[in-house]
């Protein structure tokens, strides 16, 4: 069991690290699309790592099954949410930073919307 605990701890710590980096990115990145990227790190890889870490802590009973279901659900829904968010922004006419630089006019306005 000792090894399992260590592996699980490593997974959990890695999950926390990615979650934290996602949060930092959300604050530090310059525009909407890069921020979506940072945010999606937290609910994809970080969540997967944390739940896998927790999986190893269970004694393979009903709780394991529940965690697996949660994992599956997250793996389906969170990328979809990020995708929908980015696509809606694109659809609504929001430009990436590079595009905005070439098209200087009105860029300030849109950046404000992204905040």
């Amino acid at each position, binding site marked *: 069991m000792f090894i399992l605990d260590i592996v699980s701890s490593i997974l959990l710590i890695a999950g926390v690290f990615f979650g934290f980096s996602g949060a930092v990115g959300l604050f530090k990145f310059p525009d909407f699309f890069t921020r979506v990227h940072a945010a999606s790190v937290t609910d994809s890889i970080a969540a997967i790592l944390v739940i896998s870490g927790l999986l190893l802590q269970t004694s393979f009973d009903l709780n394991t099954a529940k965690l697996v279901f949660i994992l599956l*659900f997250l793996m389906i*829904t969170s990328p*979809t949410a990020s*995708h*929908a968010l980015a*696509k809606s922004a694109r*659809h609504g006419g929001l430009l990436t930073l590079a595009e905005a630089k070439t098209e200087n006019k009105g860029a300030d306005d849109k950046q404000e919307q992204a905040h």
Partner: protein
Amino acid sequence: MAELIDLVLLAMLALTALRIIFLKDLFAVVMLFGIYSFLSALIFINLDAVDVAFTEASVGAGISTVLMLGTLALTGRKEKKNSHSSLLPLLVVTVTGAALIYGTLDMPPFGDPDNPVHQHVAPRYIEESPQEIGLPNMVTSVLASYRAFDTLGEVVVVFAAAIGVLALLGIRRKKDSDLESGLKEHKVLHVIAKIVIPHVILFALYVQFHGDFGPGGGFQAGVIAAAAFILYALVFGLPNTLAVASPKFLQWMASFGVLLYAGVGLVSMIKGGQFLDYNKLAADPIAGQHYGIIIIELGVGITVFAVMLSIFYAFSSQAERSNVQ
């Protein structure tokens, strides 16, 4: 350890509340309220109130936030500068807060098993409800049997909310479905929604009928099922959803749920007991309690589902109306 988690969560709640006071961007305010709700749900879990946490997450953070966002879409997201002086409110709040702090000084200490709350009334729920009602989840036993009348009142409150929203907004059916509704371009969303929605409904049924044994019950199940339909409406458009569950049908369902609940009470009256006395429903009291609780939870679930969906219809048909204008 639990205290430490509690402290961190409380600090986060305080920060969130302060941000809500000072932010002018209402969209951010509403999202922060969603966060506030989720954080309080976490505190509820930490304080052993799993059923409450479940309800707060689905009702407080879910439905309330969705409705607030729907309202913002119609009213604009910027708060204008407040010209009122904030001195008087501050004074009122300070006095009220001081009164409450004064009141805390004689409170029984937090978490002490010898508190009056744990010595009177509650011990019977904890010690005898598994025998008297026969359910492991004491919250369900108290909610659906000992204090079933409260829960009936609560279902009626939900019903009254539906009456209020219908009277104020109404639900408009679009005859011409040419206006853009739903997210036609989003192929990925369509596919994922088709996969997820049936599972969400399945989960709602699980929550509905598993409520006797674990956290869950009619309220949470009703809200989750409504969420599945709301997702459908968002992705495939309101007209399609109206075709699946029409407003009239939902009105019937909402009424039916209340009547089902009250009906259980009437049956127990006919069988010679008091209103909502499930012991009389079957020859064996425990079996009677089981029948009663399952049926009233079903009534709760039906009403909550129908009402939440009706309220969503009312708000989103307003949004479509203003889009057309």
